[in-house]
């Protein structure tokens, strides 16, 4: 029994069957990669996990509890964090403030009216945020407006925000797209390190096979809304169907 159990999920957009009977089980403390051609429904699947979309049918269980019918913030409070395909950050705020918010969310839950303390006096929160920024190597950008970061940095910031919450399940939608090779490697290292340090399950969508094969314990290949195969990385690499439909010469 995995920490995340997706059973018989369907999702239609008008005439398009974006997800057709998806079953997926992600085991605890593993990295599970979801790959597949563009438009296969990978992001749609993640959307169903975090409450952005509600599947037409099927069930999604996280740690034995259904996530369906819950709002995104409740799902996050259950321990699921997500990095989006196009970075979702607080553009008007500074990098530091971007980090502080998840720290509060983690400590205080979904709403607390702390209107008279000052942010600066919350020593633990500040320390936590700064520490995480150092980990992703962004301490020099701490006072920049998030909107004026370059694209790669935005992604790193978003990932740091999610990691700071120490989620039990981290969903990454193409976290290294547009990242420089060096940073991609750093990201891989970071994820590995974090996985070693704490209990964390990661589901990752990626087109960069280097990333996928360096991290993944298991891989699901999604095509046209249905899982094609699920297997270990080695097997997937050798699978001719996958090679033809998806990997091309990259394999």
């Amino acid at each position, binding site marked *: 029994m995995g920490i995340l159990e997706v059973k018989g999920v369907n999702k239609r957009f008008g005439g398009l069957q974006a997800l057709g009977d998806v079953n997926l089980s992600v085991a605890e403390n593993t990295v599970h990669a979801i790959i597949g051609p563009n438009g296969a429904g990978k992001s749609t699947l993640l959307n169903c996990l*975090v409450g952005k979309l509600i599947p037409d049918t099927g069930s999604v269980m996280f740690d034995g509890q259904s996530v369906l019918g819950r*709002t*995104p*913030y409740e799902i*996050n*409070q259950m321990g699921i*964090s*997500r990095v989006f395909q196009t970075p*979702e*950050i*607080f*553009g*008007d*705020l500074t990098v530091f*403030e971007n980090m*502080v*918010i*998840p720290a*509060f*969310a*983690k400590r205080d*839950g*979904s*709403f*607390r*009216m*702390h*209107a*008279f*303390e*000052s*942010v*600066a*006096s*919350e020593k633990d929160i500040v320390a936590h945020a700064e520490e995480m920024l150092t980990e992703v190597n962004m301490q020099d950008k701490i006072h920049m407006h998030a909107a004026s970061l370059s694209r790669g940095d935005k992604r790193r910031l978003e990932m740091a*925000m999610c990691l700071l*919450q120490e989620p039990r399940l981290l969903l990454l939608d193409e976290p290294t797209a547009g990242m420089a090779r060096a940073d991609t490697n750093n990201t891989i290292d970071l994820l590995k390190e974090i996985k070693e340090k704490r209990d964390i399950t990661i589901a990752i969508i990626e087109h960069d096979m280097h990333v996928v094969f360096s991290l993944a314990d298991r891989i699901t290949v999604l095509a046209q809304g249905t899982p094609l195969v699920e297997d270990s990385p080695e097997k997937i690499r050798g699978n001719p169907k996958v090679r033809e439909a998806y990997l091309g010469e990259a394999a």
Partner: protein
Amino acid sequence: MLGLNKKDMTLLIVVAILTLLAPFILNPFPVDSGMAQFNAGYPDLMQRFVIFGILAIGFNILFGLTGYLSFGHAAFLGVGSYAAVWMFKLLSYNVVPAILFSVILAGLFSVLIGYVSLRRSGIYFSILTLAFAQMSFALAYSVLSNPKFNLTNGETGLQVYADDPQILHRDGLPDVPHLFGWAMRDNFLELKLGGWEFTFNNGYYLCAAILLVVFYLSIRLFRSPFGLMLRAVKSNQQRLNYTGLNPKPYTLAAFIISGMYAGLAGGLLASMDPLAGAERMQWTASGEIVLMTILGGAGTLIGPVLGAGFIKYFENIFSKINDNVLHQWFSFMPDGMEDFLVFIVHPFVGKGWHLTLGILFMLVVTFLPGGLVEGGQRLGRLVRSRGKKPEDPKDPEHHPKETPHVAE
């Protein structure tokens, strides 16, 4: 100190000094001079400056931080005023219960209106609040002043009559709003220094003290985690949601707080002048609050107060300059010249004060996108850079800002 950082503390102290010395600062001209027209240091206007300042500070907590543009805040102002006058009618002229009740009632109203309106965002939210406010206005102006259950006294405005119960009223207390016998309308000191006159009014200092308290609270709020969350709401609600935070209670709390600020302002208005009219709730009044905030600089701490002062100054000072006054000003000139100048200035003052206000709105927002606060900052920078060497810090020889090559 007081949990503020140095910059905020300085700001608070500056504001405190300015408000406490306002009777001097606002009356810079001797009474008999031609410029006396521009003096603003009389009790009513000073009270209005601070009361509308409080209103705008409260509005800014909602709009400046969360970006939710309420077009119905005047409703809370009106509710606050009605609540206060009802307290005068039922209990006594003491302002304490009146102010407390106006804050509470406005708070309750804002829970109701906020809960419903906040189900939508953006322009839809604005229109919802506008609709609620316009309904409140219509109800107050006519429906609720129906003689059978006269809650608002309609066009005339709610006021205290001799036959009202006033159950806590005792002999010896003044028959005007007072703070434990200290009448709001009285002046505790009237100073005459040479040609100058300065009035120190009880009501003004009560309002000023309250302003300082709520200003302090708003600084704390701006710098607090709660304030940060509100700014996050403005920036990206999606991300907030996916970070495990529900934006709703934050925005609702901001809405209620700003509604209570508006109610407080309404209660103070009634305490300074015990009559509550329905026009206070009209959309134009709500629009005025919006304009004050943007004009001063939305999202800044002091901006809304400046904006409120600016608009109220025009309303009260410029509207009173008539041709007679103009002729006095220019009387030192030769006759033809005098008439010509009066002719030129005439359309912009007195009954033309709206025109001047409109033009200034356009100028300020076009040239100072951040409102008056930005104007102040630019001025400050100008003054500061004077001291330095006139050298362009950005590599002057290599890329001057204007070049013949690049057309913008």
